[in-house]
């Protein structure tokens, strides 16, 4: 009984701190302190300092700033322009025309950047004006952009998967491999939607683009060549097991630097700007990691996650029911929290529950990232909606409505991921099979 009262106090503390608008890292930290005070008489300050230090200064995190930096450099190059003009001759003849550039562009850039924000901003700054110039309806141009931008979190390198992997101590290489097929599947769903629009609506049928000449296609290929080379060296080296994620990240940064040097975009000023951008994102994540690592520690002291796991285990839920309940729970949380905060907050409590239920932690990483992506395109706090609104100036409500079909497609992707777990687990398995 006493512990139930304590649990209520802990939950109220967390909600009050979050609701008041305290920085989320500190809200997690404060909740951890309250839990410690309620459940133990031991001094915990020293353990807190050691935990924060050992969770931040760790080898597995070192790929994080490098992948962020790579995206920051490429965002400042004219890669997006090349991506657009390179992809256009190859894709525009498909039903749905240039809209496919949103999806393919995002999927391609996602291989070079770890964040959905960088992916969306890079592709959108070029594609939105072009699509409007060609007369594509905003509902599709903006909706497909907001949706396709989310694959940046799933397709490696993914900052979110790195943070998840460090939190639950799973191999980042395997998580990256697990994200590939679900990311491609999601892109394929978006593309099919655009093809359907192109085939089955009057407006879509009227918007057929002219066929590209062979020369145009060849020129396009040349423009895409540096991108393809970089993807091959970064993602390819991780998947083939030639390089660790950190090494691949370093190669990626060098490649990005070489590319912008070659294009004449590299200056001391742009270099400093890209580093500043990297520091901002790295520190933002670091404060969250500091808070969540201490919350995890304090939860372990209280023994609550273990009890919760036991309690849920006693209910004899089938894994499908548990996953369905978790999906609803995460969708609800996604209305208030961004993906990083959501994953770091919930994993502090839910990790034992998931492990006890016998769910594969690699699969669960892909699942939680996919569900947190859905929060990106739903109001009230969907980052991608705000971003597309700021690129296009169309208004938040209009973008949110345009993105709604994409939300349904992502829901379909979650169902497919649950029905066919192999979508996520097949690649890591062959990867491991080879290296062992």
């Amino acid at each position, binding site marked *: 009984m006493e512990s139930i009262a304590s649990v209520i106090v802990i939950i109220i503390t967390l909600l009050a701190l979050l609701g008041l608008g305290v920085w989320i890292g500190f809200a997690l930290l*404060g909740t951890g302190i309250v839990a410690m005070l309620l459940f133990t008489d031991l001094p915990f300050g020293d353990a807190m*300092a050691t935990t924060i230090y050992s969770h*931040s*200064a760790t*080898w597995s995190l070192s790929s994080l700033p490098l992948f962020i930096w790579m995206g920051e450099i490429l965002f400042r190059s004219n890669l997006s322009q090349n991506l657009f003009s390179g992809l256009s001759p190859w894709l525009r003849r498909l039903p749905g025309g240039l809209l496919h550039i949103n999806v393919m562009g995002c999927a391609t850039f996602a291989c070079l950047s770890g964040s959905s924000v960088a992916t969306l901003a890079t592709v959108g700054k070029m594609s939105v004006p072009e699509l409007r110039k060609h007369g594509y309806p905003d509902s599709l141009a903006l909706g497909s952009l907001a949706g396709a931008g989310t694959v940046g979190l799933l397709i490696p390198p993914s900052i979110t998967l790195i943070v998840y992997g460090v939190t639950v101590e799973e191999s980042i290489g395997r998580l990256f491999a697990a994200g590939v097929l679900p990311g491609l599947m999601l892109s394929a769903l978006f593309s099919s939607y655009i093809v359907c629009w192109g085939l089955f609506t009057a407006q879509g049928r009227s918007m057929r683009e002219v066929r590209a000449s062979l020369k145009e296609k060849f020129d396009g290929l040349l423009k895409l060549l540096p991108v393809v080379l970089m993807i091959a060296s970064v993602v390819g080296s991780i998947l083939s097991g030639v390089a660790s994620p950190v090494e691949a990240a*370093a190669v990626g940064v060098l490649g990005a630097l070489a590319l912008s040097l070659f294009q004449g975009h590299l200056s001391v000023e742009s270099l400093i700007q890209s580093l500043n951008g990297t520091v901002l994102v*790295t520190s933002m994540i670091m404060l969250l990691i500091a808070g969540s690592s201490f919350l995890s520690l304090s939860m372990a002291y209280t023994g609550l996650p273990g009890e919760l796991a036991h309690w849920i285990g006693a209910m004899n839920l089938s894994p499908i029911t548990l996953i369905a309940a978790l999906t609803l729970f995460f969708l609800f949380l996604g209305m208030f929290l961004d993906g990083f905060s959501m994953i770091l907050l919930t994993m502090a409590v839910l990790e034992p529950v998931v492990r006890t239920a016998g769910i594969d932690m690699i699969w669960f990483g892909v699942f939680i990232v996919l569900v947190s992506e859905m929060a990106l395109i739903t109001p009230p706090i969907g980052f991608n909606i705000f971003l597309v609104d700021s690129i296009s100036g169309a208004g938040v409500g209009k973008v949110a409505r345009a993105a709604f079909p994409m939300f349904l497609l992502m829901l379909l992707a979650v169902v497919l991921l649950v029905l066919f777990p192999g979508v996520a687990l097949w690649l890591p398995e062959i990867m491991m099979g080879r290296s062992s």
Partner: protein
Amino acid sequence: MAGAEVWFLKTSFAELVVALGDMFHSILHFTETMLNATYRLCGYLASLCIVTILLVVVINIYDRLTGGYTPGTNEIASYCVGAAGALGLAFAFGEGKHLKMTLLVSRTTGSVRKMIDLSCLLIGIGLSGFVTYFLAKMVYVSAVLEDRSTGMDEALLWIPQAPMAFGFFVLSLSMIHALATQLSGSQQ
């Protein structure tokens, strides 16, 4: 005569107040400039750490291709991630990059909003100070005991721990700075 003397005294007193006020103001201004420079400097140091990670990993790759071996590279990269993240905290705070939930707060206005912002800052300062104190204690204990890393580098542990503590210290400073700015802003 007496009236004139009082008048004279009054003037000098008033002048004194103004002069003191000026001095106070310039001290404030100086402090503020110094603080802002500190945040930026820490941000640049964080950038330097990230460049170091890149160099260290490139050395790693080179070693692997040539069959060489440089001990301690993994440890240096780990230290640098921690240091980069911590040293950039205040810079990120100033740029408003640290995530928070604004869904409820954004619906309040006026004095309610001001009170909420102030209490967030106070809570943040308290928690950040708490963390800073124990991180600093950790650094102190490591330095006194001459703790060494268990890795290949055998580095003295207080060296990589210190930037962590300093980063949170500067973050606390920047939050106090923000609190002071907000309080003086609400008086005007």
